[in-house]
């Protein structure tokens, strides 16, 4: 049996017996990440969904001064609550959170309207209150609509065709599909997949290097007639195996959760069946040697187990930032991005979830560059193990 295989089997066996390694490999991917994802998702759905149907509650001071306006408001689904505030009382009512919105109809409203002059209306709200935003917007729209009706009537009364004052007409044509609308939510899917993948191999990578040195088992290991780079390849291979395991588990769990939670509530559909899950796993497998080697190199350089843990924790965050950035900025794949490990896999995952075609060249680039860099890094790790400083 080759020494690389011997080391690989020993590391795997030892890790399977170590609860912490096993938990970080399976616990995070299988339990924590899908649960967190489901929580985020259902929170988003709740915030977007039922609020849209809730009527706007509007306190109106002096309804008697504008009965037609009040009828219009009611007609457009606004719940009008008559109040008898003056300016100070209206401000106080907003500040005390008794009302989100107060509409004040001044005394001269009716006379100015009748005279064809701009009729004043005061809308009190607190712009720092995010939840009032939607109510303010809707109320303004309804009020503007009322104004438009009056202006059309005035034009007609003066014998002018109202369309002459509408020189342009904008129509929004939304071509997003339900699958593409879910992209922002799905941008986080790749984050969770990568986190699970990293966590899966992290403890093994630390244990096999910094941990082994700290427990004093590295020195005897270096006295066996095996090339030092072969020892490290066996360890990288073992970390890779745990990463792959964690990857499979987390993708499967996310697939199940996503189909259960249902993005239909957000007006989105998602393409995350078993085939997509399989393709996602295949795309991410090419990333594993890269991640395993990086972790091993870093852990081999650090002086202690705890230090390695700190650095690897930080490293985990690095690929996540560009991913978040890419999904928020709506970046499209190009040759440079597709040659960047982790980011390219993010694009592959996203396009699979959106059910979009990805050019085979880009797929090849992503897989090729990731595997190539993985090989280079593994070789660097091998060289590193020839250094005496390794013994600490």
């Amino acid at each position, binding site marked *: *049996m080759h*020494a690389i295989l*011997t*080391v690989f089997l*020993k590391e795997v*066996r*030892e*890790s399977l*017996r*170590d609860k912490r390694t096993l938990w970080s490999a399976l616990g995070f991917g299988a339990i924590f990440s899908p649960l967190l994802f489901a929580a985020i998702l259902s929170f988003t759905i709740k915030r977007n969904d039922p609020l849209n149907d809730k009527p706007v509650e509007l306190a109106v001071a002096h309804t008697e001064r504008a009965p037609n306006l009040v009828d219009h408001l009611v007609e457009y689904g606004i719940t009008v609550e008559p109040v008898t505030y003056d300016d100070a009382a209206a401000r106080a009512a907003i500040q005390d959170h008794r009302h989100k919105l107060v509409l004040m109809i001044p005394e001269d409203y009716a006379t100015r309207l009748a005279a064809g002059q701009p009729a004043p209306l005061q809308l009190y709200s607190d712009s720092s209150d995010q939840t009032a935003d939607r109510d303010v917007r809707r109320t303004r729209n309804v009020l503007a609509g009322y104004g438009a009706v009056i202006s059309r009537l005035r034009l007609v009364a003066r014998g002018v065709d109202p369309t002459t004052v509408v020189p342009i007409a904008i129509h929004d044509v939304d071509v997003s599909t339900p699958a593409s609308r879910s992209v922002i939510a799905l941008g986080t899917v790749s984050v969770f997949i990568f986190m699970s993948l990293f966590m899966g191999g992290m403890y093994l990578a630390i244990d096999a290097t910094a941990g082994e040195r700290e*427990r*004093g*088992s*590295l*020195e*005897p*290991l*270096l*006295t*066996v*007639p*095996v*090339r030092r780079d072969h020892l490290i390849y066996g360890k990288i291979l073992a970390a890779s195996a745990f990463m792959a395991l964690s990857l499979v588990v987390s993708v499967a769990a996310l697939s199940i959760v996503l189909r259960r939670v249902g993005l239909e509530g957000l007006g989105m559909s998602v393409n995350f069946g078993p085939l997509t899950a399989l393709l996602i796993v295949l795309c991410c497998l090419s990333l594993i040697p890269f991640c395993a080697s990086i972790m091993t190199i870093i852990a081999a350089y650090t002086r202690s187990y705890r230090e390695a843990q700190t650095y690897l924790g930080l490293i985990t965050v690095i690929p996540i930032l560009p991913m978040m950035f890419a999904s928020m900025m709506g970046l499209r794949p190009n040759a440079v991005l597709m040659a960047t490990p982790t980011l390219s896999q993010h694009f592959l995952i996203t396009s699979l979830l959106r059910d979009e075609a990805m050019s085979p060249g880009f797929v090849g680039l992503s897989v090729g560059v990731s595997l190539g860099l993985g090989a280079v890094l593994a070789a660097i790790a091998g060289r590193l193990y020839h250094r*005496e400083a390794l*013994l600490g």
Partner: protein
Amino acid sequence: MIEVNGISKRFGAVEAVRDVSLRAADGRITGLLGPNGAGKSTTLRILYTVIRPDSGDALIDGTSIVREPLEARRHIGVLPHSAGIYQHLTARENILYYAALHGLSRAESQSRADELIEMLDMQDFASRRAKKLSQGQKMKTALARALIHRPRNVLLDEPTNGLDVMAVRNLRTLLMRLREQGHCVLFSSHVMQEVAALCDDIVVIARGNVVATGSPDALRERLGQSDLEEAFVRLIGNAEGLE
């Protein structure tokens, strides 16, 4: 048979080992005696090829540790400073892992492991996870692991550290047995009595230099001291005086 010819090793500004030469013959126990920090461990680490000397060379049964470290490792069994066995593996699995790394066949590994487990009286705990073993049991496991490939030369770095009286006695018996079988045994210690009780040859190291070599009797005679401890103190004192 181990022949060390003028090895030196420097760590930054510290000259850990300076032109050290010594011989450890087959069928004899050679003790590397010296105070802490004298360069004993560095000398042993160079011999078991974990670090390379800056200059000089050593031959293990005629194989150079500098030119052919991989081949030299086949001829040595090593018990380093800390036992360093794997916590989640059983004592037996720890031994078998090294058997596989030494390229032993499965059948050979098993029979050799059985043999060592019996020889070291490990039957009671051979299938227990290493984290549940006592210091003495861990030391036995590490020793069995070091002997799995039947090395002719056995190197031990402060093997009695952290062991209780019984475990030290067991180790002593074992080292004598290895001597009877014709092995070359080289071990380091800072405990004078231990070396005096066990060694056929003593190499005294202080400040990275070999300050004296010879049998315990020869050393006593040379220094005109009937007590070996006195002799040892004078040697170290002289060495310090040279600085």
